C-alpha cells in the first residue's frame, strides 16, 4: 500500500518492523529468512488506523445493548439490532433480576430510528421491583421505570422541571432529559461511575474489539489522563499481548491553556511505541442527532433550537495558540457548520500568531463542513476526520428530522475534503457507532443510509481513496505516517489480515470482507480467539 508499490506478495519482518516488501526474489538478498505461510490465502493490508474512538466503549458492554443496529461486544458476542418496542422490552426482561438493589442498566436505545419513544410505563412492564435505567443513543436522555424514579426521588417530581416531562396523567413519562436531571438521578441510584470509567480499565476489552475490526492503531479521543489512568495505560500497553497502539488525546476542562499544553507536553515525553500521547482534545458543540450541534442558518430541519456551545472562543483560541507554539496537536470536535466556522476563525488567529509549522490540527466530525470550509482548513494547515458512519446509522434521521434531504446529501463530504486537498481520515466514534474501518470505508464509498437511500452520490469517494483514509491517510492526520499506515521498510509491522481483497470485490461488498485478525509489530492476533 505504498504509493510506489501498491501490491506485493511477500514481506520481511525483523524486530517488529518491516524490513522489506516485494516478491520472493526481492527479499532473497536478505539471506536466510524464516518463511511464514500462514497468510498465503489471505490479504494483508496495513493495519487500520482509527482516528476517532473512545476506549471506555470497552466498559459500556457491562450494560445491556438496546440499539437498532446489530453490534458485537468485546467478547465477540453478537447482539442483534432491535427494530421494535417489543423486542427492546423482551431483551430487558431477559436481563432482569427483580433485585431491588441492583439497577438494570441499558444503552443505545434510539427513538429517532425506532420511531417510538420508551416510557416509564413500558419499563414497568419489565419490572416493578428492580430499578431500570435506559440510556438513549444520543447520550442526553435516560428513561427510568417507576422504582428507579422513586429511588432517585424523581417521582412524583418534587418540582416541575422541563427536563422531566409529564404525561397526560400529570405523572412523569419517565424520561430524564439533559445532564442536569440525569446526573442527580444517576448519583442517587449509585450508577454514575458505571456510565463511564476514567481509569483505563476499558483498554483491554477495547483492544479486543480492535483486533476483530483489523485496527492496529486507535485513538482514545477524550481522556483526562489522571495519574492512575497514565500508570494503568503504561502498564497495560507494554504487555506483549496487548494488540494495539493506543493514542489518547488529553481533555481537561479544569486546566488553563498553559496547564493543558504543559501536561500534554509532559505526556508526550512519556510516550512509548504502543502508547502515543501528547495530543489534546477540545469540544466546541454538541451532536446533530441530539440537536445540540451549532448550525449555521437555516438551522435544524425540524425547527429545533440553535444548539449549544461547549466552550468559549477565547478558550479555544488560547489553547490553539499555545499548543501550536509547543508543537502539540489539537483535535477539535465540531459537528455543526457554525462550530466549524468558529474553530476555523480561532485557528486563523493561532496561525497568525505563530511562525509557520506543520501543526496538522484535526477537525473531528465536522459533519456539515462545506467546500469553502474545507478550503480554509487546507490553507490553514489543518486535517479533517469525517464521520462517514453517520451516513448509514443516522442518514435517515438526518433526512427526516435534523437537516433535511438537501443538506443530508452533503454531510460528511469526503469528496469535497479531498478535492480541497485536506488530509482526510474517516471514523466510527465507537461506541457511538460500531468500529469497523472497512464498513466506514463502505459508507464513504457508497453513501447509503440504513434504509438504503443514497445520500449525495456526487460526494462519493473511490475505494482506493477510502482505503487510504483508513490507513496512511489517518496515520498522516495523526503525524504517525513515518511509523504506521503502510507496509514499507522501517515501519512497524502492523497489518490487518483479511479474507478477500477490498480492491477486487465490488465496492458495495466492502462491508462483507471478513477480518481474520491483525498483526502488531509482527505478532499475530487471531480474531476468532482474541
Amino acid at each position, binding site marked *: 500500500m505504498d504509493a510506489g508499490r501498491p501490491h506485493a506478495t511477500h514481506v520481511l519482518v525483523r524486530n517488529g518492523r518491516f524490513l522489506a516488501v516485494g516478491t520472493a526474489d526481492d527479499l532473497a538478498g536478505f539471506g536466510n529468512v524464516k518463511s511464514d505461510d500462514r497468510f498465503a490465502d489471505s490479504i494483508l493490508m496495513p493495519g487500520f488506523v482509527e482516528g476517532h474512538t473512545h476506549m471506555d466503549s470497552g466498559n459500556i458492554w457491562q450494560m445491556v445493548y438496546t440499539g437498532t443496529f446489530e453490534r458485537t461486544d468485546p467478547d465477540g458476542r453478537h447482539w442483534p439490532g432491535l427494530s421494535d418496542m417489543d423486542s427492546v422490552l423482551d431483551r430487558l426482561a431477559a436481563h432482569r433480576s427483580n433485585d431491588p438493589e441492583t439497577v438494570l442498566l441499558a444503552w443505545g436505545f434510539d427513538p429517532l430510528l425506532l420511531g417510538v419513544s420508551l416510557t416509564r410505563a413500558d419499563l414497568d412492564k419489565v419490572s416493578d421491583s428492580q430499578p431500570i435505567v435506559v440510556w438513549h443513543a444520543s447520550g442526553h436522555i435516560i428513561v427510568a421505570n417507576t422504582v428507579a424514579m422513586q429511588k432517585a426521588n424523581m417521582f412524583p417530581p*418534587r418540582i416541575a422541571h*422541563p427536563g422531566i416531562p409529564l404525561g397526560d396523567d400529570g405523572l412523569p413519562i419517565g424520561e430524564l432529559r439533559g445532564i*442536569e436531571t440525569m*446526573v*442527580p438521578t444517576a448519583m442517587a441510584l449509585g450508577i*454514575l461511575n458505571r456510565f463511564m470509567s476514567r481509569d483505563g480499565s476499558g483498554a483491554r476489552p477495547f483492544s479486543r474489539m480492535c483486533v476483530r475490526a483489523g485496527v492496529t492503531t486507535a485513538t482514545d479521543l477524550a481522556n483526562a489522563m489522571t495519574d492512575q489512568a497514565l500508570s494503568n495505560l503504561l502498564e497495560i500497553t507494554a504487555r506483549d499481548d496487548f494488540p494495539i497502539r493506543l493514542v489518547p488525546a488529553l481533555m481537561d476542562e479544569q486546566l488553563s491553556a498553559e496547564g493543558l499544553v504543559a501536561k500534554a507536553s509532559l505526556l508526550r515525553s512519556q510516550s512509548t511505541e504502543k502508547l502515543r500521547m501528547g495530543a489534546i482534545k477540545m469540544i466546541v458543540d454538541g451532536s446533530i442527532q441530539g440537536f445540540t450541534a451549532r448550525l449555521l442558518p437555516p438551522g435544524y430541519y425540524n425547527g429545533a433550537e440553535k444548539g449549544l456551545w461547549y466552550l468559549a472562543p477565547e478558550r479555544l483560541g488560547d489553547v490553539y495558540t499555545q499548543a501550536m507554539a509547543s508543537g502539540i496537536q489539537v483535535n477539535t470536535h465540531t459537528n455543526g457548520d457554525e462550530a466549524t*466556522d468558529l474553530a476555523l476563525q480561532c485557528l486563523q488567529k493561532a496561525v497568525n500568531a505563530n511562525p509557520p509549522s506543520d501543526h496538522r490540527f484535526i477537525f473531528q466530525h465536522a459533519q456539515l463542513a462545506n467546500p469553502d470550509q474545507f478550503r480554509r482548513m487546507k490553507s490553514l494547515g489543518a486535517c479533517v476526520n469525517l464521520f462517514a458512519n453517520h451516513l448509514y446509522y443516522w442518514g435517515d434521521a438526518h433526512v427526516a428530522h435534523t437537516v433535511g434531504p438537501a443538506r443530508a446529501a452533503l454531510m460528511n463530504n469526503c469528496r469535497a475534503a479531498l478535492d480541497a486537498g485536506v488530509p482526510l481520515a474517516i471514523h466510527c466514534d465507537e461506541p457511538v457507532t460500531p468500529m469497523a474501518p472497512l464498513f466506514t470505508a463502505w459508507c464513504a464509498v457508497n453513501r447509503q443510509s440504513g434504509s438504503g437511500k443514497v445520500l449525495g452520490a456526487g460526494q462519493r469517494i473511490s475505494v482506493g481513496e477510502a482505503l487510504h483514509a483508513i490507513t496512511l491517510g489517518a496515520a498522516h492526520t495523526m503525524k504517525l505516517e513515518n511509523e504506521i499506515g503502510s507496509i514499507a521498510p522501517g515501519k512497524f509491522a502492523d497489518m490487518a489480515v483479511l479474507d478477500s481483497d477490498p480492491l477486487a470485490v465490488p465496492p458495495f461488498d466492502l462491508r462483507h470482507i471478513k477480518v481474520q485478525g491483525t498483526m502488531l509489530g509482527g505478532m499475530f492476533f487471531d480474531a476468532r480467539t482474541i
Partner: protein
Amino acid sequence: MAIGQMPSLPVTVLAGFLGAGKTTLLNHFLKTARGRRLGVIVNDFGRINIDVDLIETANERIIQLSGGCVCCRMDGNFASALMELRDRGIKLDHVLVEASGVALPGPIARAVPLIEGFHTAMVITIVDIETISARLTDRFMGDLVGSQCASAQVIIANKSDLIGDTLRKLIIDQLTQSFEKAMILSTTAGQVDASILDLDIAGLNITDTSAWSPPISADALFTSWIWSCTDPIHVERLGNALAETGHGLLRVKGFMQDIRLGPVLLQIVGRHVQIATLNSPLSGNGDQISYNRLICIAEKSVKDLGHWAELEKRFGLVRSL
C-alpha cells in the same frame, strides 16, 4: 440567621462569560460573608486565589476556610458537588455555584431543586459593561450571552468605571429594557456585598423591573438585618407598610404569626407583597422555623431609621441586628 433555619438551603448560580469578573465577585462574597457560612462550588480552586492563611483544612475536592466558608471543586457536574456538601453535614447558610463561561445558568438553576435539600435562590449573571453590547450581538456567542442574562434575577454590570457616565447609563438602560425581570446593578470591580445573597428571589416569578424601584446603581450597596417580634401581628398591614416607596427596602422575607391566618410566609420584593399561609409545618422541619423574624435587605444608603422606628412602634417589632 433566618436563612439557616429555612427548610432547604438556598443556592445561587453565578454565571457570566469569560472575563466578566466572576472570580473577583466570588472573592468579594467570601470577603464580605460576615457570619454567613457560604459554600462555594467552583470549577477550579486555582483561579479563586484563596488566602492560604484562611484555609483550615483541605483535601482534593474541598477546602474549608476559617470564616466558616467552604469551597468545593466540581468535577464534572455541580450536582455531585452539592451532594457532597450536603452529605458531609457541613453547616451552611448559602451555596454559590460558579457556572462555566459558556454554561446556560437556566438549566442549572432548574436542576438545583431536584437535589434533596436545596432550592434556587437566584441566578446572578455578571457582565463586563465595556464589552456586553458587543457580546450580545456577537455572531457566534450572542444568543448564549443573551440567554445567560435572560435567566438572571440579578445582572451585575461590572467594570463600570471604565466607561463614561453617558455610555454607562445608556448600556444600563438597554440591559434594563432587554432583561425586564432582572435587577441591574452596576459596580466597578465586582464589589457587590454578599448580603445580596439574602434576596433569595428565584421562586417569586418577578415579571418586570418595577419591583426594583428606585433604580439601583452603586457599589457595595447592600445592607441587611433581621427584625423580630414576639407576638402575632397583622402581617398584611405590615407588608403594605414595608412596601411603601421611600423606604429603600429591596427585599423582606420571613415566617410570621398572623393574628388571623396563623403561620404565614411573608415576602416582599420592591413593592410586591406576597403572603402565603402555611397549612402544615414545612416538610417536617417546622420545628426549625423561627417565626416573627424578618430578614430585610436594603440599599446601603438607607439611613433614615425614622421610618423603621415608626414601624416598630406600629407593629411592635424589635430590631435585633
